[in-house]
């Protein structure tokens, strides 16, 4: 069982609200990731981090931002939510280096109305 947690699991929020999706891992992993996944679709990398104070944009453009102040914590923020942000957001972590699996959280399903 992977020790990576996302909260909330489900969120319905109005347009224009600021939201933060939480992700925490207790495995001491250096690398962390955020993926976006629409229902029935593939995963797309939107942000990743190599470690504390490191944040990088992924392959898919996103209006969200991330921060990495502590190793175990990698929150994702949307300053002003829009219906187009409705999706599932998956957080993952892995040890640094090549050839190691990424462990995923259960995801946050976001609906913006």
């Amino acid at each position, binding site marked *: 069982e992977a020790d990576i947690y*996302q909260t909330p699991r489900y969120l319905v929020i109005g347009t224009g609200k600021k939201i933060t999706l939480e992700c925490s891992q207790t495995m001491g992993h250096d690398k962390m*990731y955020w*993926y*976006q996944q*629409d229902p*029935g*679709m*593939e*995963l*797309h*990398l939107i942000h*990743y981090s190599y470690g504390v104070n490191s944040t*990088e944009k*992924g*392959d*898919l453009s996103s209006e969200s931002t991330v921060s990495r102040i502590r190793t175990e914590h990698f929150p994702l923020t949307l300053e002003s939510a829009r219906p*187009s*942000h*409705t*999706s599932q957001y*998956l957080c*993952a972590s892995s040890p640094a*280096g*090549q*050839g190691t*699996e*990424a*462990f*995923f*959280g*259960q*995801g946050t*399903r976001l609906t913006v109305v």
Partner: protein
Amino acid sequence: GESVGLHLPTLSVQEGDNSIINCAYSNSASDYFIWYKQESGKGPQFIIDIRSNMDKRQGQRVTVLLNKTVKHLSLQIAATQPGDSAVYFCAENTPLHGQNFVFGPGTRLSVLP
């Protein structure tokens, strides 16, 4: 949310039969590959991995085959069970993407009674 990519192909198999799920990966420099299983409402779970210096690896009821010549990965599930019903993703780890995981489009496996 922004929808990029194709809807998932579906594979239907009879319970007890063997399943073969295929994946074409994109980067010849990829050196590590993982198959993930994603059940409805959950994050992806690791099934089996393989490094680029191997062409076959076996686990419990699962086998992964790697053909680097044609950049093809397959997952074989023996004696498929109802609990195997899920979406299966292959992921490649490549130095050209910051050593991040790039996911394939996924295949939905339905096990018929």
